[in-house]
């Protein structure tokens, strides 16, 4: 059955969406939340486990100080109040990727509450309220065997690896965000992007969505103007910035078509489909799950004192949004130019290139020009394109020193990206330096004059513009290694001397 979805513009003209986001961030601590097992990614299955994170009988958790501090720092960066006293709670449910069949989490006493994050959408500031930031432990990973596609459905058995079990996970929950209208999908995306940047700037997580260290659930509801908020659905499995935007948009369209047909929206969990961009219902449950939360008796309360919190606050870095404003001013960029830098994900790269000695204009030219083009071609992240900010600065240095011209510099960059070494090495190995030996150049110029007597005559008669053709000929014989300006001067000089 296919239903035709109404047009988006038309829908958001009639309905008001309310969105909300729950984001899980795996912290980049050395060890897990409640035991000393390492958190490094990609180990052989069940090699990063101990009695505690395997939930063996008799084992007990002890909280990781670095994880607590990271959470408080996230809370502070999101303008939250830090609880003076709070406890962990057990969330009880049976699932094989959870070794104890309960998850140590926080329930009605989160570590950080009531903050906000300002995000920019189309140059406008939107304030997203933060309900809570709390700490919990991650689950293991389950491999489904025997089904068609490694999915749980149709699998005949499952295999569990607990390496990930117990990695500290911070959950950041927004307050409901009304009033964004047609921009709801973009606001959702901008929030997640900004949150990612904030967390990255704190250095507490690598926040890579593709590796699952940042995961998102998106809540969406629709209501008619002037009416109460509608029933919300929760869309899980939203694992990229683009998906956040698509998930909100498709859920708005789906809900509108249900409502338009006189139907009702049920509170349910839906799953985002990366391939089609729409959401599908999860299995329906007869009753809402009762997690039977109660205070975790194996852990004593947390009571971050004012001095500790103040120390953490004092050490917070500048917020990414303010940092970007400052850079925009320093680099003298227009709003539009800054936006293209942001879109390319080039802020830090340009910053580092400048730090390594390049001018803002040159740094931006390389990263947004040649390197962005290459990244697009290969589908790589700009930061993984193969050149470092230091190399880019070195390359520009060679240009500024007159050792490379633009064309040669691009060739050198090609060599750098191909892994042939530093710009200086590539230049030397490929023999690309600008020819500045006037003896050799004069010979080449004389050769070109002799071979093109007609053009030479024109120049002699004052038609200086014709010199371009001779310059081209010289560049050809020197395989581009001559400096065009020098060649031109030399041609004019030779012809007037002969004249």
């Amino acid at each position, binding site marked *: 059955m296919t239903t035709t979805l109404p047009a988006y513009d038309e829908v958001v003209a009639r309905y008001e969406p309310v969105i909300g986001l729950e984001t899980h961030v795996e912290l980049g601590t050395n060890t897990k939340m409640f035991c000393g097992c390492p958190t490094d990614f990609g180990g052989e299955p069940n090699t990063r486990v101990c009695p505690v994170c395997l939930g063996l009988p008799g084992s007990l958790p002890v909280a990781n100080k670095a994880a607590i501090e990271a959470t408080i720092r996230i809370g502070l960066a999101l303008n939250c109040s830090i609880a003076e006293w709070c406890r962990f709670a057990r969330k009880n449910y049976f699932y094989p990727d959870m070794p104890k069949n309960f998850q140590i989490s926080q329930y009605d006493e989160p570590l950080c509450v009531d903050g906000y994050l300002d995000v920019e959408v189309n140059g406008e500031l939107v304030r997203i309220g933060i309900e809570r930031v709390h700490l919990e432990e991650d689950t293991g990973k389950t491999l489904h065997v025997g089904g068609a596609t490694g999915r749980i459905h149709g699998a005949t058995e499952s295999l569990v690896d607990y390496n990930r079990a117990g990695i500290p996970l911070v959950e950041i929950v927004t307050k409901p965000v009304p009033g964004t209208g047609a921009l709801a999908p973009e606001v959702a995306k901008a929030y997640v992007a900004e949150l990612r940047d904030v967390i990255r700037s704190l250095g507490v997580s690598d926040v890579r969505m593709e590796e699952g260290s940042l995961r998102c659930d998106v809540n969406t509801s629709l209501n008619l103007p002037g009416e109460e908020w509608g029933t919300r659905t929760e869309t899980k499995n939203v694992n990229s910035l683009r998906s956040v935007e698509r998930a909100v948009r498709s859920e708005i369209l789906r809900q509108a078509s249900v409502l338009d047909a006189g139907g009702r929206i049920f509170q349910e969990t839906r799953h985002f489909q990366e391939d089609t961009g729409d959401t599908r219902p999860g299995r329906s449950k007869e009753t809402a*799950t009762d997690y039977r939360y109660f205070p975790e008796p194996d852990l004593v309360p947390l009571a971050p004192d004012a001095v500790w919190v103040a120390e953490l606050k004092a050490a917070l870095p500048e917020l990414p949004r303010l940092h970007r404003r400052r850079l925009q001013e320093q680099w003298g960029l227009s709003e539009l130019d800054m936006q293209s830098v942001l879109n390319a994900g080039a802020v830090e790269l340009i910053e580092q290139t400048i730090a390594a000695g390049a001018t803002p204009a040159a740094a931006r030219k390389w990263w947004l020009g040649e390197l962005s083009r290459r990244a697009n071609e290969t589908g790589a992240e700009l930061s993984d394109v193969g050149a470092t900010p230091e190399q880019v600065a070195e390359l520009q240095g060679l240009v500024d020193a007159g050792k490379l011209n633009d064309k040669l510099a691009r060739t050198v960059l090609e060599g750098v990206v191909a892994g042939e070494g530093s710009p200086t090495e590539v230049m030397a190995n490929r023999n690309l330096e600008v020819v500045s030996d006037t003896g050799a150049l004069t010979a080449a110029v004389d050769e070109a004059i002799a071979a093109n007597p007609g053009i030479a005559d024109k120049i002699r008669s004052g038609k200086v513009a014709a010199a371009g053709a001779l310059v081209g000929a010289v560049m050809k014989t020197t395989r581009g290694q001559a400096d065009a300006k020098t060649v031109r001067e030399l041609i004019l000089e030779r012809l007037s001397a002969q004249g």
Partner: protein
Amino acid sequence: MAAISREEVAHLARLSRLAVTEEELDTFAGQLDVILQAVAQVGEVTAADIPPTSHSVPLTNVLRDDVVTPCLTPEEALSGAPDAEEQRFRVPRILDEDVAS
């Protein structure tokens, strides 16, 4: 009046992952009823101004430094497993994908 019905006991058994027999259900329903009626006495104390005690030790902020300690070997980790495959714990097919959060 009974504090708990046979149906409620059956529901508790399901929640607790206990495949109790019909016969057990009859026995447990009676026993749980006696126990729950007795423990309901805690309701007699007026509770308005009394803070709950979850921990008897007056400790807070018991934290561990973020330092790696040795893990079990995979052999040790899997030594007690009823079933294992490819160095992982093997379990029968899972029905309810929604339970995972």
